[in-house]
Each structure stands twice: as structure tokens, then as C-alpha cells.
């Protein structure tokens, strides 16, 4: 008797690919994908249920399909894809609350895996070099994605207290990069000219998309409870990343980068949120000791390797040129 896994947020590329990969796992019997809009790509053996996690229908889906593992990865980072900040907040926070409420009522759910992000730690000049899982943000996020995630994590912790019999795994993933990823950070690196904050060289820690898939599957199949930072080994600085990309960059004062970011957001060129500006100013590093010792997960890509793989998808011509020369 294998597991029945419910995956939320399947319409997005990363959710769809995770669900598809999960069907290949021998310990997983069925994978059910849930989202408001159907996924665009091939979902293989995944059964898709069109449901909105913002209303109680989700509880019926869980009860009807005898779901024992819920993987929640529909927390979206950018208002652009959802159609506005209001909708984004509703999808993220209300959706997560409904999903948790449904899980709490369910008698079958044994495991809950929530894909969170290291953005909850924030970015600031007073941050320690490496955040461990026990640390919180130095300043509470006031808006946007970081605030949503912070609130969702609060609800998840509340759920874990109320249902101690359910193994709750919170994966705080570092910024995910890879050839298929479209996130604020990857869109930033795909800009023809990269704006940088003058006088700051933030440390970046990256996670390859394949490693994100693997860690979510690892958490869903092993059911080790706890909160874990997941990131590739090592850090790289923004200047290093830009130089490796070979893209021209321009250093602007912080306020100018912020202004440029909001202009680009309005023009729908790139989502440049305030927390992203903080990240690109001060950077962030997370400690991944617990990922190794407790979760027992080893990422395949280091930060530098993940970035190199991403770079090949951005500037193939540069790579070829270097190969020929």
C-alpha cells in the first residue's frame, strides 16, 4: 500500500514537475494535483482535480481520495502571475489556512510538507552571516511575499501544535535557480543590463530546481518532521554572479534601483519587489547543517554549480563561443 500524495499549486511549472516526478517514486501510489487553473504542460500519471484551495472543497478532495500526504507548494512569490497583490495575498494566506483547516479535520492525513523560503529571514545589515532554523527575521516583514510566508509559517506551526500526530516538514528553500525556473531572481538575471546597488555586494545562496524536487520528495517519503533550511553549498556574491554571466551591469544608488524596480514592475518587465531589493543589497546566508544531520538530504548542486547550470540556459552563445576558442 503506497502513499497518496496531494500536491497544491500544480499549474505552475515547479509544482507540475514535482508531481510528475513523484509518480515515478515506488513508495507513492497516486499523486493528485490541485489548482484553480489546469497545468499547461504534461502531467503524466498525475490526476488533476480542479479545485480552489481557498474554499472548503479541498477538504472533500482529501477525504474522498484518502490522501495521507499533503505537499503544499502553491505559495506564490509574485503578484504579477496572480493578478495583483490582493489576489496573491488571498491565494497565499487564505488558501494555506483553508488547506490546513482541511488537513486538521482529516483523519487520513499523516504528513504535511510545506515549501517555504529563506526569504522569511529577511535581509538587513544586522543579520548574522548564516541563519539557523531557530532564528527569526531581525525585522518583521511588513509587506509582500515575505510577510505572506511569515504568516503561513505561523499557521503551519499552529497546525503542528494542534495535530501532533501529523509529521509537519517545513522546507525553507533558498532562491531556486535552474533552466526552467521563472522567479524574480532568475528574471533579474535574465535582464539585458543588470542593475546593482552601488557599494553593496550581497551574498547569494542558491538551490537548483532538481534539488528542490528531490528534497520535497525526500520529505514526502521519509516524513521527518521539523523545519529545515535547504540550500546549495557555498555562497557567491552578486558581482561574481554577474561577471560569470557576462552580462553588463550598472551600479546605481539604492533609491534609484528601487525606483527602477517599481518602474519595471509597472511595465511588467520584471517583478522587483521591496524584499528583493533588500536581498540584492544585503544578501543572505543560511546554515544547512540540520538539512544534513536530521533530514539526511544532500543537494547535488552547490550554489556555484546551480548558477552555472542556470547560466547555460541564459547565455548559450557565450558558452559556445568559449568552447570554440
Amino acid at each position, binding site marked *: 500500500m503506497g502513499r497518496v500524495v496531494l500536491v497544491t499549486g500544480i499549474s505552475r511549472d515547479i509544482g507540475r514537475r514535482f508531481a510528475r516526478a513523484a509518480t515515478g517514486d515506488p513508495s507513492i501510489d497516486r499523486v493528485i494535483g490541485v489548482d484553480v487553473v489546469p497545468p499547461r504542460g504534461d502531467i503524466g500519471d498525475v490526476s488533476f482535480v480542479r479545485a480552489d484551495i481557498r474554499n472548503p472543497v479541498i477538504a472533500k478532495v482529501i477525504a474522498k481520495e484518502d490522501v495521507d500526504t499533503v505537499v503544499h507548494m502553491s505559495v506564490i512569490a509574485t503578484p504579477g502571475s496572480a493578478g495583483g497583490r490582493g489576489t496573491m495575498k488571498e491565494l497565499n494566506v487564505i488558501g494555506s489556512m483553508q488547506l490546513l483547516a482541511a488537513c486538521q479535520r482529516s483523519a487520513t492525513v499523516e504528513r504535511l510538507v510545506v515549501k517555504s523560503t529563506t526569504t522569511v529571514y529577511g535581509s538587513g545589515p544586522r543579520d548574522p552571516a548564516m541563519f539557523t532554523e531557530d*532564528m527569526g527575521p531581525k525585522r518583521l516583514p511588513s509587506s509582500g511575499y515575505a510577510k505572506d510566508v511569515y504568516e503561513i509559517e505561523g499557521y503551519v506551526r499552529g497546525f503542528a501544535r494542534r495535530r501532533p500526530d501529523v509529521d509537519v516538514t517545513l522546507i525553507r528553500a533558498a532562491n531556486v535557480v535552474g533552466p526552467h525556473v521563472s522567479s524574480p531572481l532568475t528574471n533579474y538575471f535574465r535582464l539585458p543590463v543588470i542593475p546593482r546597488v552601488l557599494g553593496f555586494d550581497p551574498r547569494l545562496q542558491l538551490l537548483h530546481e532538481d534539488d528542490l524536487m528531490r528534497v520535497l520528495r525526500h520529505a514526502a517519503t521519509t516524513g521527518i518532521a521539523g523545519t529545515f533550511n535547504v540550500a546549495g553549498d557555498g555562497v557567491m556574491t552578486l558581482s561574481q554572479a554577474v561577471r560569470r554571466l557576462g552580462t553588463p551591469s550598472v551600479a546605481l544608488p539604492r533609491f534609484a534601483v528601487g525606483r527602477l524596480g517599481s518602474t519595471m514592475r509597472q511595465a511588467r518587465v520584471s517583478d522587483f519587489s521591496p524584499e528583493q531589493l533588500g536581498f540584492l543589497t544585503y544578501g543572505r546566508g543560511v546554515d544547512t547543517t540540520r538539512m544534513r544531520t536530521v533530514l539526511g538530504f544532500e543537494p547535488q548542486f552547490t550554489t556555484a554549480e546551480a548558477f552555472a547550470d542556470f547560466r547555460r540556459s541564459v547565455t548559450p552563445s557565450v558558452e559556445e563561443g568559449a568552447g570554440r576558442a
Partner: protein
Amino acid sequence: MPEEARRRDGEDAVVIPIGTGGRPGRGSGSARPSSAARNLAPSSRKASSAKPRRAGATDAPGKKARAGSGRATGSADETVVTPPTGGEAAKPPTTGIPVADWLAAAQGAAQEVFGADWERRAAELMAFCRRRLEGDYEVDDYGFDRELTERFFMAALRPIAEKWFRLEVRGLENIPAEGGALVVSNHSGTIPLDGLMTMLTVHDHAGRFLRPLGADLVFKLPVVSALARAGGATLACTEDAERMLSEGQLVGVWPEGFKGIGKPFSERYKLQRFGRGGFVSAALRTGVPIIPLSVVGAEEIYPLVGNVPSLARLLGVPYIPITPFFPWLGPLGLVPLPSKWILEFGEPIRTDAYEPGEAEDPMLVFNVTDQVRETIQHTLFDLLRDRGGVFG
């Protein structure tokens, strides 16, 4: 020559030729030097040998002029001999330096800059530049760029330390060759140059990198924050300090903080309060030795005589320094005074005898903090007595 030697012996003075190389005349164009110039001449032989040459040189234009007038009249036979020699004499210094000479000069310059194995060194430099431009280098978890620090920061600081401040280092044997240790130092000098000098000293003499812990202001300021991270600094907080110490790094702290570097010149070499003793609890928890470091000399580089608190508050910095030279002399006022520096590393204070749990005992923490503070203060007084004068 013998005449000159005799004169030297007799008058006990050295004749230093200036300008014309000791030859009489001031290049005024007249064939005959002035009487004053003739008296200056060291020997009559030199003067006589110089005379005909000058006469010849001044003759040439005269001849030319005559030749010109001659050409105008039509008889040019006299001019055929003289102009070519004049032209030849004028040409070589300006043009026609052979390529081989240029190459030799470049080679000599390279040798001068890079030393005997200049070809390898120059190639290394090129490779370094290429790596920097392509981002092909490593940084550690704190953003420490080892290559840049060694090849650039240290190289830039070394002449300042050796030539300007004439650093004298004592007690080097107290720096452990490996393993975690906490260097605790006094702080002074308006601008934390003492921290940079300590980093350089530890690198050059002990072969290790000192990882400084900086105030959060350091990481708030543009440029400074990027340089600090690349140079190996991190934020002075318990988490980072304990992480670095348990990794076996040599960590430097300046517990006086802004109270230390921003104190007025009248309070020089009086240690300020040592914060809450957070550095002691970090050392106790990780069981690493504390090495007290006393720095003499940094107090005098920018004597702080005043402060503009209102402007400082407006800019969000702890103080705006007023020194006898800054801001009155503008950028020139930023040149530190060349005081004589002495750095003394004291005997390590061991903490591994305590239980890690004892780090929570405030009484013990205060006692160890006081011990470190007293050690540094007494060493400062001893060093001041040893140092002859401020600039000595």
C-alpha cells in the same frame, strides 16, 4: 681633483654640484661666464675644458645666421660643411631610440616592479585580472575573498604599516598556529585603522587571517560593507562569533566599539567600557583562548578634538570627527599623522577549563572581561613608557 680633496679636508664640507653640473656659466648664452660663476668653479681644468665647448656651441647659431645671410646674397659654399653637423647633434636625443632599447627599458622596468622572476609574476598578475573579471574565484560563507585580500588589500596596507607607522610587533608567539582563538584589542584612532593594521600584522607574521567582527554600521554603509565582507569581516553578534570560533578561525574583536575610536584625544589610552562582555561568553562557550592585544600609536593618527553631535545624528553616524587638520585642510586632513606604533600580543587567557554552561554565569563573564581589560590597560602603559616619543 687633488685640489678638491684638499678643500674638502680643510673646510670639512662637501661640495654638492647643482644645476650646471659644476661647470661655470648659467646658460645665459654669453661665451664668457660671469665672475661669480668662475669663482664657483671647483678646478681651473674643468673650467678650461668647458670653455671651448660652450664657445663652439654658441658659435654654431652665429655661423648659421651668417650662412643665412650668405645664402641670401648667393654664395653658399661656406655653409655646406656646418649645417649637417648641427642637425646631427640636435636629432638623436629626440627621435630614433632603437626598438631594442625600448624593450630593454620595459624589461628593466618590469624587473624593477616584479623582481627577478618578473615574467612569471607578470603572467600571474594577468591571470589574476582575468579571474577577477570572469568571476572565477571563491568566497567563503561570510563573503571573505581570500585572493583579493592577499593580493590587493594586504599589499596596499603593507607600505602604510611599515613605512608610515613603522609597526613594531611583540609577543607573536602568543598567536596559536592553528585552532580558534579570540584576539581582543583596544580601539582608537577615529577611523578603525588599528583593525586593518592588526589584520595585516597577523597575516604577515603569523601566517593566518584575522577575521574581524564589525559593528552593524559597517554593514549598513555602501562600499564599506562590500569591502568589509570581502576582507573577511562579519557582524559582531554572538551567532557569527561562535560560528567562526568553532570553525577554528582567528577572530578579532574591539569591545570598546565606537566609544573607543570616537573618544576625544584628551582621553587617549584610557580604555572605555567593554560592552556586555559578549566576546567572553562566546569564547567560554567555544572554549577558545582569549589573546589580549594592546595597540599603541593609533590614538595619535587623528587626534579627535571635537565632534558635531547634531550633524552626526542627522547622518546616522556615531560622531563627526574634528581634528586639528580635518575638515580644515580638506582631503589633506585625512592623511594620518605618522605616529610610531607598537602592537603587543599578550599571553593567552585560557577558557577551556570552564564548563560551556558557565558562559551563562554573569559574574564569571564580568570577571574574565575585567581580567582582559586590566591586562590590556597595563600593557598599554608599559608600551607607552617604552616608546620614546609619539613619532619616535
